[in-house]
């Protein structure tokens, strides 16, 4: 089921508008876009909710949401949510490739949540961590931690998955153990 539609797209990242302003995919969750015969996968790297026109700002009313819905139902119609995703890989003919697709996904294509099986496939390759770590919107450590949390949850042995991911990450971090620590303080091995 589509949760958004692409409104901007680059090789490394695409931005989608959420179908409803209050239905946004979780930070660090895995999404997919079907573009012709390939499936592009991404990880949600940030979201923004604001006024529809983008030029003016929403106004504060100092009332509860329920009161507002009753008194000013129209203001919710003027809100929109965008979320950005880093591209981590794509699938073609049943095979997953852990690198950028030959072309970036087209505009107006629907964005869907990736299912568990797909996440398991993607998370076998740890290079998604490199994409999250260096994502264009900054906050790489936060996003990496979120992605590891998401991926680990689906593994049969989350603890060992987290350790394997950590080892891979440590290499990417050029063996900077302090940074590794700051990421893994945000990953709770359940």
């Amino acid at each position: 089921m589509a949760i958004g539609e692409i409104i901007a797209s680059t090789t490394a990242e695409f931005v989608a508008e959420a179908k409803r302003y209050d239905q946004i995919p979780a930070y660090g969750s895995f999404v997919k876009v079907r573009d012709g015969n390939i499936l592009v996968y991404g990880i949600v790297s940030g979201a923004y909710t604001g006024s529809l026109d983008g030029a003016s700002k929403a106004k504060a009313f100092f009332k509860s949401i329920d009161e507002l819905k009753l008194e000013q139902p129209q203001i919710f119609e003027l809100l929109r949510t965008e979320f950005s995703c880093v591209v981590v890989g794509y699938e073609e003919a049943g095979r997953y490739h852990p690198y950028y697709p030959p072309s970036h996904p087209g505009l107006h294509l629907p964005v869907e949540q990736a299912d568990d099986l797909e996440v398991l496939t993607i998370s076998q390759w740890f290079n998604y961590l490199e994409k999250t770590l260096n994502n264009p919107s900054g906050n790489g450590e936060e996003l990496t931690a979120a992605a590891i949390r998401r991926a680990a949850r689906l593994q049969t042995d989350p603890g060992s998955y987290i350790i394997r991911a950590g080892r891979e990450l440590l290499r990417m971090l050029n063996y900077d153990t302090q940074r590794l620590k700051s990421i893994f303080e945000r990953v709770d091995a359940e």
Partner: protein
Amino acid sequence: MKGTILRGSLSGGLEVRLDIGENIEEIKVGTFCVVEGRTHDFFSMVVDEDIEAANPRAFYDNHSDNPLINEIIRGTGIIDKVKIQPMIAINREENRIQPVKSIPSYLSVVREAREEDVFKIFGRPDRTNFHVGSPLDMEHIPVCIDLKKFIERSNGIFGKSGTGKTFYTRLMLCGMIKSGLCNILVFDMHSEYGWEGDDEDETRKKAKGLKQLFGSKVAIFTLDPESSRNRGVHPDFVVEIPYRSIEAEDIAMVWEELNLNPTALEVIYVLQKHLGQDWLYTFLNMDAFEIKDFAERTGAHEGALQALQRKLFKLQRLPFIKENPADDAVERIMQYLDSGMNVVLEFGHQRSMLAYMLVANILTRRIHELYVKRSEKALGGTRENNTPLVIVIEEAHKFLSPDMSRQTIFGMIAREMRKYNVTLLVVDQRPSGIDPEVHSQLGTKIVALLTEEKDIESVLSGVNNARMLRNVLASLDTKQQAIIMGHAVPMPVVIRTRTYDETFYKEITRDDYGGSKSLLSSGAGGNNSTSSLSKADYEQEMPPGKEFDDLMKELYGE
């Protein structure tokens, strides 16, 4: 142990990165391992261990509060590293053992040695391939010494006191006797090889001597029949040394024990020159007038002569030195050796260095002379070559110190090696006291724990990759662990030596390789070693030397 080659050089050894999950604490220095290169297997020894960080900062970031981070870092950010020294290479295709002339390529897999690897290098146990122990942590796999090569050269057994030198010596003696490749003459200072000796293991108490294990293949000679009798040993022969056979050089060797100065030594040579073979006896029996007369005749200093005489009186106190002994010990020893027996000479209470050195030197000199003559005859084709003779001496640094080794017969034997089929097995706790030249001539060394820097250095002289073996030597256990290196083993190896117990007794007395007995012409008495020798049989075995009492009567009267 599992890992991959990280880096290294031919001269400096290889560094192995341990695989994640391997426990470095369980890998001991001295462990035998194999590197599987592309075309060669490299048989190596662990010589050092160390911890390395890819990014040195990692050492200083403390994550003791975060077990997860520690788990991640261990093996990636901070790695356990093992340093190994390749000792031998085998070309897998040709299956040929060769010295190491190259190193395995990067990322070659390193693994623990397996049984077949040990056999490939050290061979399987058989009559001449003697099972001495097993590699560290591989207790069921036998490591063998090639006895044929072992007896080709002089060898050494070294170790701090209390590290089991006596046991290693017993072990090697058993192996050599069983193989029948050579005859053995042991100068048994502490009377611990021939008959029972103390076992440091409380549960066993007594360790069997060679006579108990090999019966008629071993003869016990003694210098102190009373001590032997008190210990329940029936010696085959009581050794007495005639004054005649003591030469100036014998006295020169024990100058320290007799407290002689260089002048005294010169006087001794003068005495020998003028008084001939009986110099010592004649000199000791001179009174003051005779000494004066002798001094005037020869130009020697009278005072020096008197002082020397006083000092030499010490020799008279040695009960085994006789004017006219009943029998010639050397001839008897040769007789026994010729009949294929091995001789253990017990010193009993005569365990002073003076007695030990004097007797060992006198006997060995004459035996050596005989061997040289025979070898020359063998060269001339008039007789068969000698059975090799291995002479075992303890406290070897006394005989082979840099000052002494040029004068004593032992130094000569160690140097000229196997030419005349006589070699030494030196047992010592201070190898640094032995002449470096002798060290370099020792073929095989069995070394137990040594801690003194000088001792370690001296045993490693003349050994390849000596630098690497240092750590190994200093980290041996105090018991039952030794490193064997040299001529008789293809590569140095740390072993846990066999236990000298009932199982060993049974194995060593069993005729399991067929026909080993026939190699030794059977000596006096029956052949006691049978394949079905049980524990009860050992105990029933009668002590040898039935004629002992007659002999005692003959020697000492009623």
